[in-house]
């Protein structure tokens, strides 16, 4: 049964699910937090964006390993039926795989016993105008899962480009509730994946390129009722600060800075949206995320540090109150939107002290590691020595020492700034190998020329105000516009790169590491690759139908380990190809940088699933065959 509308009734779907013997998850009497933590321990499941609350994209499974990875073959695949960028990764819970898609953000549930069967599909109707206010392709980064309780069965959550957050019954796909979070009329859209903590679902925001003031909102999973909302700029009440905000690090700044670091009311259109990823520490009840860039890109139009854009936040989940915030890029001049992945780990620092850490590879070219209980800065290393906007980050003051030569300003065209606005790292969800204590970073190698211009703010219209030219960094091939990416294994304590490799294009989608000693990732030119986590040697790859901008995932089903990845090129690097643009400064400057991409890939959209020897549900070819008289 395929339900084409959210209104489709669930009764028959549920009946069929039971008839076909799908696992109906019996909720345990624990809180949703604990249940999700427990479920994530089972390699059968991948219940959230980064697999578990530590957001490490790491699997304990060793079935697929360095020795046998050469035998990895496709087991099955699924086309989503839409083109454009396919970011994020599917979720797997028990016998089900949940797949999201770019606009119009259709959600699919597949039966892992017979993936040829679409168990349900929930296809929303959206105002197509939403597409016109999406800055960087009509992507979406994923779904979220709530395990249910005695009253309400498990739910799947989806954000839509048109600004809605939707809860659907995981068994039937029937819509439970829909709430308005963002208004496309003011240029505010949603591309971020929702995130479930306790009995709340968190929703971020997009639209800093249209002057949208960023905010994060928590809704009750069952009713959709808003629990709290916290902005990135403005008065402290709206920033939702705890009494002791930044008390352990008062030099980061504390009260009233959401207005005092802006001139006049500019904070009202000050950006700071969060469209990246979250991580959560249940013991501290703190979740972590980054706020985006200030608006507009023209720095001269907004004097001040522009707090709290570009900040790493530690917020109490229950109340939403911020315990700490550290601004990485005060007064941004390069669009280094600070929304990137947050990976949690527990490691000994240089003094031999065990610390609960948060590691965050930022757009600005620096990998930050903080103590996640209090915001202490532990390390801040350049992910490549060619970063030039900053000389260093002072660990005692937390301040980046800017190199004035590579700043931007009105009536001036700055050149050879590294990283570019696309960052040395973007939206890719990376991984951490806790055995090797290494972060597997998918890195960009792109620099730029930048010249701002004056422009008015009109709600609903773009509010960028800069012209960019982007090209490969110093280690790439500028003549041929290739060599735009790197992949590196990073030690957050020593600051060393265990290994590093160049890639033809930016490694945009993120990485996944496994106890089998493998690091998987997809490439824009259309491969899934597996490298040796100790050496970085390339051990295996496969040519997918299209380029990859999502992160790999893995799960165990029927005793067999699978690796799945979405393909479908797009996102910011794909806008030239996707919208057929030729002007190198179009697509906010990405068209020129990625002009060679179309020689290697075209648009696509789907999931490809791999296993050793390609074994899977259809190894017995009779599985799923039509048998007269039986419902299929």
């Amino acid at each position, binding site marked *: 049964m395929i339900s084409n509308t959210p209104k489709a009734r669930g009764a028959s779907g549920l009946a069929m699910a039971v008839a076909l013997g799908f696992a109906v998850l019996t909720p345990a009497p624990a809180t949703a937090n604990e249940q999700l933590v427990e479920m994530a321990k089972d390699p059968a499941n991948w219940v959230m964006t980064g697999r578990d609350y530590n957001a490490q994209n790491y699997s304990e499974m060793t079935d697929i390993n360095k020795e046998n990875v050469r035998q990895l073959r496709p087991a099955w695949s699924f086309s989503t039926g839409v083109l454009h960028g396919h970011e994020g990764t599917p979720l797997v819970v028990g016998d089900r795989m949940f797949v999201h898609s770019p606009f119009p953000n259709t959600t699919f549930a597949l039966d892992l016993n017979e993936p040829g069967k679409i168990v349900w599909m929930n296809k929303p109707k959206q105002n197509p105008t939403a597409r016109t206010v999406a800055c960087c392709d009509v992507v979406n980064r994923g779904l979220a899962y709530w395990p249910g309780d005695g009253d309400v069965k498990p739910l799947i959550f989806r954000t839509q480009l048109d600004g809605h957050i939707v809860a659907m019954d995981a068994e039937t796909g029937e*819509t*439970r*509730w*829909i*709430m*308005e*979070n963002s*208004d496309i*009329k*003011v240029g*505010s859209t949603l591309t971020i994946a929702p995130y479930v903590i306790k009995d709340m679902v968190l929703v971020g925001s997009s639209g800093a390129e249209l002057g*949208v*003031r960023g905010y994060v909102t928590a809704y009750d999973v069952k*009713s*959709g*009722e*808003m629990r709290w909302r916290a902005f990135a700029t403005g008065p402290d009440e709206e920033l939702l600060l705890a009494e002791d905000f930044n008390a352990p690090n*008062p*030099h*980061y*700044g*504390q009260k009233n*800075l959401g207005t*005092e*670091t802006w*001139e*006049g*009311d*500019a904070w*009202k*259109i000050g950006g700071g949206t969060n469209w990246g990823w979250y991580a959560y520490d249940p013991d501290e009840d703190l979740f972590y995320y980054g706020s985006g860039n200030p608006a507009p890109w023209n720095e*001269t*139009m*907004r*004097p*001040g*540090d522009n*707090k709290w854009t570009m900040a790493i936040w530690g917020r109490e989940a229950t109340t939403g109150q911020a315990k700490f915030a550290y*601004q990485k890029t*005060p*007064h941004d001049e390069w669009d280094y939107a600070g929304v990137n992945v947050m990976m949690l780990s527990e490691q000994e620092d240089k003094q031999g002290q065990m610390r609960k850490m948060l590691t965050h590879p930022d757009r600005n070219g620096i990998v930050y590691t903080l103590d996640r209980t209090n915001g202490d800065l532990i390390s801040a290393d350049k992910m490549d020595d060619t970063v030039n906007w900053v000389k260093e980050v*002072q660990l005692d*003051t937390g*301040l*980046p*020492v*800017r*190199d*004035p030569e590579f*700043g931007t*300003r*009105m009536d001036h065209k700055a050149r050879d700034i590294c990283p570019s606005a696309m960052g040395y790292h973007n939206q890719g969800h990376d991984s951490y190998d806790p055995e090797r204590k290494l972060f597997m970073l998918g890195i960009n190698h792109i620099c730029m020329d930048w010249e701002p211009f*004056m422009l*008015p*703010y*009109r*709600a609903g219209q773009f509010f960028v105000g800069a012209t960019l030219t982007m090209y490969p960094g110093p280690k790439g091939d500028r003549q041929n516009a290739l060599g735009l990416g790197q992949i590196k294994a990073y030690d957050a304590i020593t600051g060393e790169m265990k290994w590093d490799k160049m890639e033809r294009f930016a490694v945009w989608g993120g990485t996944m590491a496994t106890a089998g000693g493998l690091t998987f990732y997809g490439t824009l030119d259309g491969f899934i690759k597996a490298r040796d986590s100790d050496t970085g040697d390339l051990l295996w790859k496969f040519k997918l139908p299209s380029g990859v901008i999502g992160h790999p995932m893995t799960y165990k089903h029927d005793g067999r380990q699978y690796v799945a990845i979405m393909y479908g090129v797009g996102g910011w690097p794909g806008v030239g190809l996707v919208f057929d643009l030729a002007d190198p400064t179009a697509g906010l400057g990405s068209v020129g940088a990625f002009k060679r991409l179309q020689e290697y890939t075209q648009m696509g959209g789907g999931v490809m699933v791999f296993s050793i020897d390609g074994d899977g549900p259809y190894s017995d070819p009779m599985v799923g065959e039509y048998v007269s008289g039986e419902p299929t």
Partner: protein
Amino acid sequence: MKRLFLTIAAMALAAPALAYDGTNCKAPGNCWEPKPDYPERVEGSKYDPQHDPAELSKQGESLAVMDARNAWRVWNMKKTGSFEYDVKKIDGYDETTAPPAE
């Protein structure tokens, strides 16, 4: 004129840093300085964005009406046990007031 004078004085005090490097802080968490030859405040300068207050308030207004509609949706689902997105179909909906207190 006074502002210009103060700006020049401040720049003189900020010496020897000839350019904004982000390390001279007025207060904790507030370390911005104008670049050489650029104004301390843009209001009245040639870089004045001249934002229209009506435009600046549109986002806040939009959030208020979305939140109000959501409150009715939540109220209605709690009352009836079924969800209705279209607030115009919600019995008792009044766009000028919040839903009745429980």
